[in-house]
């Protein structure tokens, strides 16, 4: 990649405020994302992560609006009164979105194949055969077996993990410059979570796609991200490299959450037991996985900076 593009962020969010009516739910958030970079966006439930992600796609739910600041995607302003049509063409083609619930993010009454082809038909001039070929290739990339048969089946015939892999294949088919993964694995059990995240990271890397990995569970996503941003009640309270954020939060990643070596995890060296931060008791050693899910439940992670 050329030097210049390294320095042009794929996404630049500047002093962004999102409100529902008079109530701001995202307040003055700024960050940048380099091409191909994976950033984890973490924060407790309701802190405004999803709204931030949606605003980037121009898909805020009814009643919600960007009330201040701006979002630049590849130097194009998303929030300006630019044409709806331009925004639409950007969606899917350049920015992909994956949701938490693999059960509800695939249309239950449409065959997998159809759902995968749709966006390609909309955004490319490829022939049906070429589109199909691309879909099969993607399904192979996400390590699904027997992709030909799979195309003819309906979402309800698959497990949660498989569905999320299908989602990844479907979204990444167009090789978007940015993928917003909104809690992509929250609904899955731990083993499958890791499997899916591994695949997502791999596909993103292979396609040079930058990722905003949204999660309420720091431990699960941190190892995949070069940087971490922490949100709390609409405010970005913490942002920095993964290592520095983890250090400040007295947190390490449990071994079984680490991505495979091939992905070059930014925190490979920091394998330790989790140190959960509980405001009442301070920090303490936990016994592993079960504690990790409780990790982000703490109200004020910053205070943990004072832990031993």
């Amino acid at each position: 990649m050329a030097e210049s593009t390294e320095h042009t962020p794929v996404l630049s969010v500047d002093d962004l405020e999102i409100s529902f009516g008079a109530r701001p739910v995202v307040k003055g958030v700024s960050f940048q994302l380099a091409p191909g970079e994976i950033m984890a966006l973490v924060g407790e439930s309701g802190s405004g992560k999803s709204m931030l992600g949606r605003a980037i796609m121009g898909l805020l739910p009814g009643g919600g609006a960007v009330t201040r600041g701006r979002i630049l995607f590849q130097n194009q302003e998303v929030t300006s009164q630019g044409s709806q049509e331009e925004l639409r063409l950007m969606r899917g083609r350049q920015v992909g979105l994956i949701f938490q619930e693999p059960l509800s993010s695939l249309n239950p009454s449409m065959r997998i194949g159809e759902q995968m082809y749709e966006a390609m038909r909309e955004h490319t001039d490829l022939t049906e055969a070429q589109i199909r070929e691309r879909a099969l290739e993607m399904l192979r990339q996400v390590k699904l077996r027997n992709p030909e048969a799979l195309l003819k089946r309906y979402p309800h015939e698959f497990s949660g993990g498989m569905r999320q892999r299908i989602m990844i294949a479907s979204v990444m088919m167009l090789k978007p410059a940015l993928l917003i993964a909104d809690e992509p694995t929250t609904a899955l059990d731990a083993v499958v979570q890791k499997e899916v995240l591994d695949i997502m990271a791999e596909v993103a890397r292979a396609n040079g796609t930058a990722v905003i990995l949204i999660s309420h569970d720091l431990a699960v996503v941190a190892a995949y991200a070069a940087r971490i941003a922490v949100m709390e009640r609409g405010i970005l309270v913490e942002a920095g490299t993964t290592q520095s954020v983890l250090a400040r939060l007295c947190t390490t990643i449990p071994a079984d959450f680490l991505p495979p070596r091939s992905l070059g995890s930014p925190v490979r060296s920091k394998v330790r037991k989790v140190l959960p931060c509980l405001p009442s008791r301070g920090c303490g050693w936990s016994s592993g996985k079960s504690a990790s899910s409780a990790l982000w439940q703490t109200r004020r992670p910053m205070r943990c900076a004072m832990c031993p």
Partner: protein
Amino acid sequence: MPIFVLKRVLMSIPTFVIVAVIIFALVRALPGDPALMMLGGNIDDEATLEQMRSQLGLDQPMPVQFIVWLREVFSGNLGTSIMTGQEVGSLLWQRFGVTATVVLLAMGSALLVSIPAGLLAAHRHNSRTDYAIVFLTILKLSMPSFWVGLMLLVLFGAILGWLPTVGFVSISDDLGRGMLYLILPVTSLALSEIAVLTRMMRAGSLEIMGRDYITHARAKGLPERKVLWRHVFPNAFAPTLTMVGVMLAGLLAGAAVTETVFTLPGLGKLLVDSIYARDYPVLQGALLFIAAVYVLTNLLVDIAYSFFDPRVRLS
């Protein structure tokens, strides 16, 4: 699927026998006497009444009458009308043809209007368009259909004089003229259906529009039109389809009000007339026929449902 259909049909046979018993019991439990009704209450002598009764086979004990009827029904003979002497079987079929034409045309046009209207209202949720659509449907629902039918008749028949007010021409006899006679009843029936179905479609669409896969469809960059038709519609339509099934079964069993207002010789009118005249063979035959219509309509709706919702398995 053929196995599924066959199974369902076979399963309905015992239901039919039970229905037959209930129908017979209910019909005979109606107070009133067909012989008496036929003489119009002006009974001049008992002998006449008795003669009429024995002609109608009503002088037999009730269980004998039932067995005779059931035996005939199973051999495919529904008897003849007390009132007009017509074959009940062909009478029902003929009347059903009229009702089915009107009802299916009305349902077809109602769907053509209410699906886009419901989708549009949901798409423009809380906009003026949405309010206008909701208001119109409530307005229609609050008007009795008899009155609406009559007003259509007065407006287009009497005041404007564009359409005929009485009579009926079968479209199989003369398509052009037949359609002329069908416009008002179909419109009147369709209006009621549109009101109900638009509301169902709107509510269903609103619910579906909140689903992640709709946001996802938009996130794919699909134009709104495609989001609505390909993603919202098929999923929002499933509950509406159930309603369509319920309404269709009810209406195919006879759209009595519409048939009365627009003088259509349909099943509903026949049923009402046969109740008033205590025309037992017609009444019993019609009720049995209606039970069959219900079973069949439900079967068809189930098949159609599986088409819109692949999660539903036909088994």
